[in-house]
């Protein structure tokens, strides 16, 4: 750390900053490649503020300015106001219910005039992250206690429930990524394993015939009893434990999942999940069929079609790609939503496997860098916050990429820093800049 550097840049993690700027630039170029029309004057359109890439550049500049402001604040400001921000976020989320505007397919957007849109659920990710870090870093919090774990879980799940109420299932799932932070702070690994196993069980329920799955589960239970027969001899409770797990598993696959699919989720969402898994969903009644028809027609983003075109776009890129502005799939709008959720198609088609690998390595470098930064913090608050940033980014990246390649259902999650969208860019930028500010004072212990 050279003392000659100006105050603002002293102690700032250069690598993280440059990775961030690089990703934002890739984003602008990708949006440019996806939306540029033959014959447009590039300079003119960039300055016109009317094209998407022009708007994205403006939002990038706004993010930089706002980020600089964040860097100029005191790091204690965040610890001091974390809960306040969280309360503000929840308030915004509640305000959405009476004031949300009529945007198709979602009830989570508040419109100010024609130009400005606000989706509080996106902003709230930052606030939840701060609040969680604040709670975990409290001196009086003993995270080994179940009560503390439940409070921490409540902090992150509360906005998620509100999000589901606003028909934003995809963004609600993002909040579950905070469990990684809690895992780092001592949440028993078994909870993660159970969560993961549960996910596998649900997927298996959808893929495998119920009777066969029940047989498999019974087989696994029997195998476990055989392997653990010594322990069972000594402690009868182990046997009951295994049997209990078996009953729960069969119960889930037999009753819980069908119940959720039939009564909790909307038929079109069920269809999307089935589409992703490559199975045909047969609507159980006319109302369900009508709901599917309505949602696929009005939203005009039939998940199946999107994914198919997206796979064609990425697949046709080959090893080295077709080159910038040469991709036929992305240039001629075969992929819907390609400047937002399906922006990775542009990169995959234009730059091929090589380009995609470079792009992915930038992301993985960013994530690993954030983890490294997190581990060098003296204060728990900063560390938790940093892990929160890493988890949220990781979840977005993984789900979005899987989505475009047909590995995950299309749930409308943007690719951080790259997807078109002013609010999402500003939100992610703020997360990074707050992290940079906290990292600047990594030697301090913040409470």
């Amino acid at each position, binding site marked *: 750390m050279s003392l000659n550097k100006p105050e603002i840049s002293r102690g700032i993690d250069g690598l993280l900053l440059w990775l961030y700027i690089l990703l934002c630039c890739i984003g602008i170029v990708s949006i440019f490649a996806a939306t540029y029309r*033959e014959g447009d004057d590039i300079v003119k359109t960039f300055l016109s503020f009317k094209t998407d890439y022009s708007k994205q550049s403006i939002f990038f500049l706004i993010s930089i300015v706002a980020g600089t402001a964040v860097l100029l604040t005191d790091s204690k400001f965040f610890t001091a106001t974390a809960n306040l921000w969280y309360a503000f976020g929840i308030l915004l989320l509640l305000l959405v219910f009476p004031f949300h505007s009529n945007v198709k397919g979602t009830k989570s957007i508040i419109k100010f005039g024609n130009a400005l849109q606000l989706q509080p659920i996106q902003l709230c990710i930052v606030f939840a992250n701060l609040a969680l870090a604040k709670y975990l870093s409290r001196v009086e919090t003993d*995270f080994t206690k179940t009560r503390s774990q439940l409070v921490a879980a409540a902090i992150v799940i509360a906005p998620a429930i509100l999000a589901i109420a606003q028909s934003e299932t995809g963004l609600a799932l993002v909040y579950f990524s905070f469990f*990684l932070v809690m*895992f*780092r*702070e*001592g949440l028993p*690994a078994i909870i993660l394993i159970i969560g993961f196993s549960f996910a596998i069980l649900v997927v298996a329920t959808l893929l495998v015939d119920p009777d066969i799955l029940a047989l498999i589960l019974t087989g696994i239970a029997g195998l476990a009893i055989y392997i653990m027969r010594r322990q069972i001899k000594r402690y009868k409770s182990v046997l009951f434990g295994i049997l209990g797990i078996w009953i729960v598993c069969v119960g889930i696959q037999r009753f819980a999942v069908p119940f959720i699919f039939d009564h909790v989720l909307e038929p079109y969402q069920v269809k999307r999940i089935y589409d992703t898994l490559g199975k045909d969903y047969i609507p159980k009644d006319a109302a369900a069929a009508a709901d599917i028809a309505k949602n696929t027609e009005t939203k005009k983003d039939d998940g199946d079609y999107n994914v198919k*075109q997206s*796979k*064609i*776009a*990425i*697949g*046709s*890129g*080959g*090893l080295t790609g077709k080159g910038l502005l040469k991709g*036929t*799939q992305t*240039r*001629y*709008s*075969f992929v819907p939503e390609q400047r937002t959720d399906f922006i990775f198609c542009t990169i*995959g*088609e234009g730059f*091929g*496997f090589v380009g*995609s*690998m470079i792009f*992915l390595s930038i*992301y*993985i470098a960013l*994530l*690993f860098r954030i*983890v490294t930064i*997190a*581990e060098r913090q003296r204060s*728990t608050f900063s*560390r938790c916050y940093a*892990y929160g940033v*890493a988890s949220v980014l*990781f979840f977005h990246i*993984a789900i979005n*990429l*899987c989505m475009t*390649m047909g*590995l995950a259902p299309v749930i409308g999650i943007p690719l951080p820093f790259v997807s078109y969208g002013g609010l999402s860019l500003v939100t992610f930028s703020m997360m990074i800049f707050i992290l940079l500010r906290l990292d600047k004072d990594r030697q301090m212990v913040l409470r």
Partner: protein
Amino acid sequence: MPVFNQSRQTVIRLIFATTFLIIVVRLAVLQLFSDKYDAQAFSNAVYKKTIYPGRGIIFDRNNKAILNNTIIYDLTVTPYEVKQVDTSYLCSLLSIDTAEFKNRIITAIIKNGRYRPSVFEGLLSLELQAKLEENIWRFPGFTLVERPIRTYPFKAGAHLLGDIGEVDTAIIRRSKNFYQMGDYVGRSGMEQYYESVLMGQRGVQHLIKDNKNRIQGPWENEKYDTSAKAGRNLRTYIDIELQQLAEKLMANKVGSIVAIDPKTGGILTMVSGPVIDPNDLTGNTRQKNYAKLALDVSAPLMNRATRGLYEPGSTFKPVGGLVALDLGVINAGYGVSCAGAYYGCGKVIKCEHHNPGHAANMRLALANSCNSYFSQIYRMTVDNPKDHNTKAGYTRWKDYMNAFGWGEKLGIDLPNELPGSIPDTTIYNKVYRNQWNSCTNVTLGIGQDKMQVTPVQLANAMCVIANKGYYYTPHFVEKIDNETPADSILKPFRIKHEALTHISDEAYEAIHAGMQDVVESGTARIAKIPGINICAKTGTAEKYTVLDGHRIKLPNNSMFVCFAPREDPKIAIAVAVENAGFGSTWAAPIASLLIEQYLTDSIRSEKKKDVERIASANLMPAYLKRKQFIADSTRAYYYFNLRKDSSYIKKYLKQRSAKVEKPKQDNTTVSSNKNTAVDNKQQQSAIIKQQIPVPVSYKSYGNSRNRNLCFYKEAFLFVDDKHFKKQAAI
């Protein structure tokens, strides 16, 4: 406390890394190990547009273009651009109503989708096109698209040139998907035969389209595009002025004229009557005229020159004489004493002449067309002592016929040629149960019995005689512009068939002399042209047809064959005029005029009135009207049966209505009074049903031919005979 969990950062890093690894593997599978996506992206975005070249042009022997290309306009519509169109004005221009307008738009959307143009009204007339062009700005979404069609400046040669039309699925399948829906190909005549030459080479343009199929521009800077190559022109032997004259002479007659240059086998003229104007079958008038012509029982669309089967009659005699001379069964001085008929076989074969000595030798027999003489020499040919039996003799005779090009396809450059018929022994064996001799088919000697030839075969036989033994397969095309060795299409026409050169010159001279006498002093004196030695033979073949269940005799077919000049043959002609009477009355003067026109390039002024006389003569056989009536009423009945729509059948019913008995009508009125709800149309169809008893066995008729016969029977029920009797009296 936090230090306690420090190891967990490794777990988190591992989770990150594993997830990214899965993504990378998936990416590799998509981008590196599956190639279907590339093809899918290509077919998604690249539109291969076919560029059609101009078709080749066909020239006559004097380098006049017999047919040409011109441009006509289609009105096309792109449904999605149709906004604020002055619909009522457009409808009034096209004289359609708004319901029809909507209908056509919907059809266009179904056919080609919303974003691509489809034909709204095809082949606009010049007047309509001019009106639309002026007002096209009022109709956004509508454009005028040019489409090349053929025109025929000489209004001649419809049958030989053929026409072009859209491909059907059968053609596409046969071409192994070379042609695509909407392509135009030659559907008949030379257009079909020389399709590969005339069509040229299609070009391909690659265009980028977007997700709504809108064209965005060229793909890859036109790197993969190929340009269209225009079709090559054909240079033919056709003499278009001769063709025009021949068609004029053939007007309102059923029959055919074929004129060949014997030296080259080049066809100078080919006419099939009834004559049609090729311009009727192009452009916007095609639809209307084609239907009319196709339903005409005189079959104006059939090319009788290659598909019309005629008994050659007396025109066979030179050929029969040649065969007998070559086999040595007679010599040129051989004669018979004919007293007006041939009695050698029990059944009497009448002869036109009975003065003694009219068949004293070959020359006289030919000039006087003596039936006795040629019946006799036919029997001598077949009962040749050199052969073991009659059948062997007959087979030898048949080989001669085949050498003349009869009984087999000649292989001329038109599609769908018929082989004619020279039956072989198996057919006679079958018909006569092996019990037959030279008397059984003795009329073969005078060109009747089961012998049938096409006019082109007849003209070809004349070429053989004129050339003293050799011929070239008759053909139209002399050469193709820019011909390359790869063009094998003309090869068969350049082979000299020395089929009968083994016959001695003396034999040919004897036949030539006899044929010249036909014109000088025989049956065809009318064909004589001063200064030109014409060798010819008239023919008159008896015709019968079955009409209303009766076999009736029709007027004879008038046949005529000739070549001229005798010393250096330049033209060989075969003329057949159906049901016109003697060969010398109609066919001979037609041939004579053609020879005069061809050899002297003009027609003497005293003969010009002959041209007008023949051209204005209407020799359409009377029985055709009757047949037309039967066909039309049968079709009307069939349609009525199919649709229960009486509008077509009504006019045929009028003539019968007088005969319908009263009580039947009363019955229907009583029943309709009971059922007041029955609407008018149903009543009508009920009445008609009562008038036309549907045969019980109607459904049991399997194939369509039998069914047609059944309809014929039905049709007779409501046709009065007066109509036909009037025609027959003419």
